[in-house]
């Protein structure tokens, strides 16, 4: 299948390895990945912060960049949710192509749960709010993780509680965000995991940033990077 990758401006800039992992994974499964160079941002930050006027041009650009694709994949639950739920609200004229978050594409569209990955680490999974409650990905990411060889997957207590990131919320309501982050970190640490994974690097940057500041020794990895990993990888 020919699949267009929507990298998201955030991953493009901060976490290109996640994008490379998506490409590697999908090509390994026998699919063709395109990267439409006209893509930029989905407008989520502006929309969620109340700057609709500023977000609207991004909606048009998105539809243009991905026009004609049968499937678009993105390694971000919240950006997928933005396109799916709100692009039409911002601009009723546009008709965005179907956008799938990575686990949705793999399980629902491509019909795989065992992607042939190998990741010999103790891992815990945080279901991000938008993938859980906007996209309803359910246990698809867990199905994919359970099939990874070598993995020691441990359950995260109070997994469905928000981590406190919320985009500009973390700046505007920094104290409340800190309090939520503290609880999330406590739960992550209680699992004894070496790696925390999720389907969204924004939440991971927030939780991982706190874990790093406290020198907890727990790292973060996007789901795509675990699924792309294979025996022989460094």
């Amino acid at each position, binding site marked *: 299948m020919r699949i267009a990758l929507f990298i998201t401006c955030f991953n493009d*800039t901060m976490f290109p390895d996640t994008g490379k992992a998506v490409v590697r994974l999908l090509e390994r499964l026998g699919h063709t990945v395109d990267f439409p160079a006209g893509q930029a941002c989905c407008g989520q930050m502006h929309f969620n912060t109340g700057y609709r006027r500023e977000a609207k041009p991004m909606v048009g650009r998105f539809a243009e960049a991905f026009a004609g694709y049968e499937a678009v994949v993105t390694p971000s639950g919240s950006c997928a949710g933005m396109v799916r739920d709100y692009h039409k609200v911002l601009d009723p004229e546009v008709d965005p192509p179907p956008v799938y978050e990575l686990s949705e594409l793999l399980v629902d569209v491509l019909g795989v749960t065992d992607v042939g990955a190998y990741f010999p680490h103790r891992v815990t999974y945080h279901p991000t709010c938008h993938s859980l409650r906007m996209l309803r990905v359910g246990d698809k990411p867990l199905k994919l993780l359970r099939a990874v060889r070598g993995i020691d997957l441990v359950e995260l207590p109070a997994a469905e509680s928000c981590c406190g990131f919320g985009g500009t919320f973390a700046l505007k309501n920094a*104290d409340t965000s800190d309090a939520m982050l503290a609880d999330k970190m406590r739960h992550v640490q209680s699992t004894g995991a070496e790696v925390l994974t999720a389907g969204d690097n924004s939440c991971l940057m927030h939780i*991982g940033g706190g874990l790093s500041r406290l020198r907890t020794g727990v790292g973060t990895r996007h789901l795509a990077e675990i699924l792309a990993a294979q025996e022989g990888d460094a």
Partner: protein
Amino acid sequence: MPDNVTWLGTPAFPEAARTALGNNQLRTNLRKATGTIRDKRLAVTGELADWEQLRDAGAALKLRTLRHLDSHLVRLEEAVTKAGGTVHWAADAAEANRIVTELVRATGQTEVVKVKSMATAEIGLNEALAESGISAYETDLAELIVQLGDDRPSHILVPAIHRNRAEIREIFRGAMGEWGRAAPDDLTDEPRDLAEAARLHLREKFLRAKVAVSGANFAAADTGTVGVVESEGNGRMCLTLPETLITVMGIEKVLPSFADLEVFLQLLPRSSTGERMNPYTSMWTGTTEGDGPSDFHLVLLDNGRTATLGDEVGRQALGCIRCSACLNVCPVYERTGGHAYGSVYPGPIGAVLTPQLVGVADKQAASLPFASTLCGACYDACPVKINIPEVLVHLRARAVDEKRGPVPSPETLVMKAAAMTLSSPRRLGWAQRFGAIGGRLVSRGGRIGRLPGPLKRWSDTRDTPVPARESFRAWWQRTRGEGRS
């Protein structure tokens, strides 16, 4: 104008939250209380096979009713009048307070007993009555605790959720005597003893009261039946013993027909207290000779509701049945408690209702839609499927637009610059190259530590990775060539 939709002097949410977050006792009480009630709610909503259909039915009924609110209200007025009651219309808090005060004055009484009511808290009725020399006694146990403690409610269903039993004992011992029958000297903090002290204190008031004031959970337009749902039975005392009953009800509480209660009497208790059925459901239709109050007044309150109805996205907030499920599941509310919202309506519903009732020009109210991570837990829990996240982002846009003036604020400038960059792949590419260089300059060991300026609060508690030396698009271009543009 006494008006409690927002409490004067409460700072904007971020600042009020900071104070609340530092109160460890509050944090413990809230964690325990919200945790318990969450589990109970999940258990009793999960056991109904048709729970989702019930929610759909509730949501549809509310939206349909709101669309023809005017005609339902007129029907309600006719039915109540026919059954022997009197209907009054109040455009705002001041008018509602004036109507109630005059009605009480006409009875010659200087005391009223009260059933727990959000509407009367919203208009600041107790304070308005006090100005006219009328004492209003709260009879709901939690409201009593709040009133005796000279405090504010912090939850719509459990107004004293921020207090634990040791604190309640101190409040009872300190203040009950001033308001009526004092608490015994040897009062313990056992729930049974506390309840007994409250019972004796309140019983005296019930037996003496000639006038009661209540709110209403619903009113059926076809029969004129008004209803109150509660757990303690104190409400029923107020609704049946006095001679005069004055009910203040928000206009959105009307239902087209008595039969619609079938849906809401299932949705409400399961969502609010996690019970299959609430202990007391009191209903009355006008007046009945020799049974209950002989004089009944229904005050229909607008106070910003018609304006809210005019907002196509925001109006769904008027469908709220005040179950408080959204508060109990909210990760922000769980940590800050209700006082930080500075309004009688705290939590997610408060964050969408308060700014609509008072307008987003109010700085404190305008901060409320931003007091959310948009995690969506409230929407999942709401028995009438109010899409709270959708209304939150809608109100954020209204708040931002309200502030747009000839001179853009620093935030607007940043957002405009970001929009310029993020809407063009070329400019984004430039920014990525600059960001990678800048990031490397301030980083140590591959991580960015504390930063000055607008990112200070982010970086105070979190390390940030350095922007990649080569962005994804640069990598793609280098390894795969142009691609489609």
